[in-house]
């Protein structure tokens, strides 16, 4: 390359670089199409690209921020340990902006343009339903962290949160047994998750516990006035109020309960929708003594969880709180890593095939295992709200098999 003209040299050099880049990009999938990547995913010998799709803006940012943080923490830790199959994980983060069509559009972008190996994302069932056709059509892989209503199972989704029967049945059994509860008042926000959950709860209460549902009420999302409802509860005097109120309504509901004198001293209440995240907004003192049914609480006393909480706080500040979904989101990257390494490949089909039976002994919630139906075996716990915004774990179930299509409950 000793040319007399510098211009030519430069042009030559540029051309050579361009050519090699072109070759690289054309050859890339084939050249590195080792067993680890036969489908043209964004995988190089040193790097694998994954997507993250949550709402960083809009109404749902309240809830999804924790999931974004947990997934990033997990990926950072995996990278520090040497990555997945020797590749460092690179994240492309997209913002679903609390808008379901945007979720679908961004999912398509991640899968088609960025060719990400997997996506960690979504929070609401509505956003998951919006991206599901995209993932099935493009054969992508989604790790979904939220506890949800069940009645779904896709080859392309791994559900790391609990489905409804896992969260509901054990906690109802517990409250019937320890509190002798016979009458229940069911309260929820008016959309698919509370309605499905309450349907399951009602069947269980009536058919298995032989108790009675004395009231069932749904309020529009965002409702801020619960006075009439609280009076109805006072009139019916149920042994247990079973609640699945979400979002801003949640705060209004508990503040107004407290203001109406309905405290844990007078009324037993069990909720499916309050984690440490929600308690920040409600205020622990306004809910002290009520119970929540979750698979994870920040106060869990085991070495895995202590390490997790410490790492989370080191990264996001000492006041950071960790709710159930945040922990479930943290499992996503670890479960994916385990499945990829078992499959020896990033190919979605192989990772999916390798997933059932994957165990995680290092999970903060304790041992989990992926079931053939793509949900996790997990324990259900009851936490009692403490005034400081944390939960005291008062009950822990055995490992519960996920059952997204429960017979006799539909």
């Amino acid at each position, binding site marked *: 390359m000793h040319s007399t003209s510098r211009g030519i040299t430069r042009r030559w050099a540029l051309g050579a670089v361009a050519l090699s880049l072109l070759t690289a990009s054309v050859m890339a999938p084939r050249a590195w199409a080792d067993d680890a990547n036969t489908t043209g995913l964004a995988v190089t010998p040193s790097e694998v690209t994954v997507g993250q799709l949550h709402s*960083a*803006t*809009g*109404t749902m*940012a*309240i809830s999804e*921020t924790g999931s974004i943080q947990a997934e990033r923490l997990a990926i950072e830790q995996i990278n520090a340990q040497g990555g997945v199959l020797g590749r460092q994980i690179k994240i492309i983060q997209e913002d679903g902006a609390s808008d379901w069509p945007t979720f679908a559009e961004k999912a398509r972008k991640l899968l088609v343009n960025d060719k990400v190996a997997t996506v960690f994302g979504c929070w609401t069932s509505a956003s998951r339903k919006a991206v599901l056709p995209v993932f099935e059509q493009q054969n992508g892989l989604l790790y979904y962290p939220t506890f949800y209503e069940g009645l779904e199972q896709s080859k392309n989704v791994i559900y790391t949160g609990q489905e409804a029967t896992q969260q509901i049945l054990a906690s109802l059994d517990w409250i019937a047994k320890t509190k002798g509860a016979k009458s229940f008042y069911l309260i929820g926000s*008016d959309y698919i998750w509370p309605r499905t959950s309450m349907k399951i709860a009602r069947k269980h209460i009536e058919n298995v516990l032989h108790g009675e549902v004395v009231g*069932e*009420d*749904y*309020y*529009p999302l*965002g*409702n*801020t*006035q619960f*006075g*009439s*409802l*609280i*009076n*109805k509860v*006072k*009139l019916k005097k149920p042994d247990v109020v079973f609640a699945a109120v979400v979002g*801003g309504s*949640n*705060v*209004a509901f508990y*503040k*107004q309960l*407290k*203001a*109406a*004198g*309905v405290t844990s001293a007078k009324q037993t209440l069990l909720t499916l929708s309050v984690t440490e*995240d*929600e308690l*920040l*907004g*409600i*205020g622990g*003192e*306004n809910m002290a003594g009520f119970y929540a049914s979750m698979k994870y609480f920040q106060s869990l006393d085991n070495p895995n969880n202590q390490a997790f909480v410490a790492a989370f706080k080191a990264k996001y500040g000492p006041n950071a709180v960790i709710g159930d979904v945040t922990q479930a989101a943290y499992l996503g990257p670890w479960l994916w890593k385990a499945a990829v390494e078992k499959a020896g490949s990033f190919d979605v089909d192989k990772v999916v095939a390798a997933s059932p039976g994957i165990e995680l002994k290092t999970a903060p919630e304790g041992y989990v295992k992926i079931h053939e139906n793509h949900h996790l075996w997990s324990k259900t716990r009851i936490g009692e709200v403490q005034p400081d915004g944390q939960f005291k774990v008062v009950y822990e179930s055995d490992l519960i098999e996920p059952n997204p299509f429960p017979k006799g409950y539909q």
Partner: protein
Amino acid sequence: MAWLTEFGAIAAMQAFNGLSVFCVLLLMALGLAIIFGQMGVINMAHGEFLTVGAYTTYVLSGLTLHYAPSLQPYYFFLAIVVAFVIAGALGWLVEWAMISRLYHRPLDTLLATWGLSLVMQQALRSIFGAREVSAELPEWLMGSFSLTDAIDIPRNGLFTVAVTLLLTGGLFLLLFRSRWGLHVRATMQNRVMSRAVGIDTRRVDRMTFALGCGVAGVAGAVFTTIGSTGPTAGSLYIVDTFLTVVFGGAASLLGTIASAFAIAQTQSISEFFMSGSMAKVLTLSAVILILLLRPQGLFASKVRK
């Protein structure tokens, strides 16, 4: 007999609930009634001024707890005043920068203020984080007075009622008994003529808008006792607020009061006998029906042309 006392207790509490829903509706609608009713500006960012009031309370509660814990039981009064000042000042700024340029294009104010509401939401999210926060409320505000075994009257409800009464009374005095109120009403009825007789209508506009926003700030501060404080908390109230003002008749404060009362009672009573969602459907249907028959709202209005 026991059944009868219980029935009485529930009826009493239900009546109080109706009253407290009425006050909540009125409180959030007052500011809009001034801005929309008196000025004809459709302020979609009204909810966000509420949110500003709520966050002001949150910040003050943190500051009090940190610097003067002994004043914690009383800071709430200060919070209400500061919320009024901050939301009002912000309103003044918004009127100066944006609204004042849009008076001849009333429909555009809708779009512009909606954009403003998005900007304010995201700004609050960037400053305070996306998660909801909770102001440390004084002990005397939470909990209830137990009159009998069965009757519990919520203290925050009583407080809301008191603030609403004071604020409404104050606004009436201001609008109908003060010289400034005379200017406001004159400007509303005939802007050109008002200017001709020497009223500085630009100043009147600015102060009116600021007043409306300030009142929204007060509502936001009070609502921290019954609801959530988050970047989008205000948007929970915006639909009900417009409903109340439009139903009452745009330019009439009395209409707003009557409408808040009618909606609150319908809502509160129907909620007792049916599910919350159905009660909402019933209330909204009734409002639509009445507006179909009486498009100008409960009280006839004169809107500035």
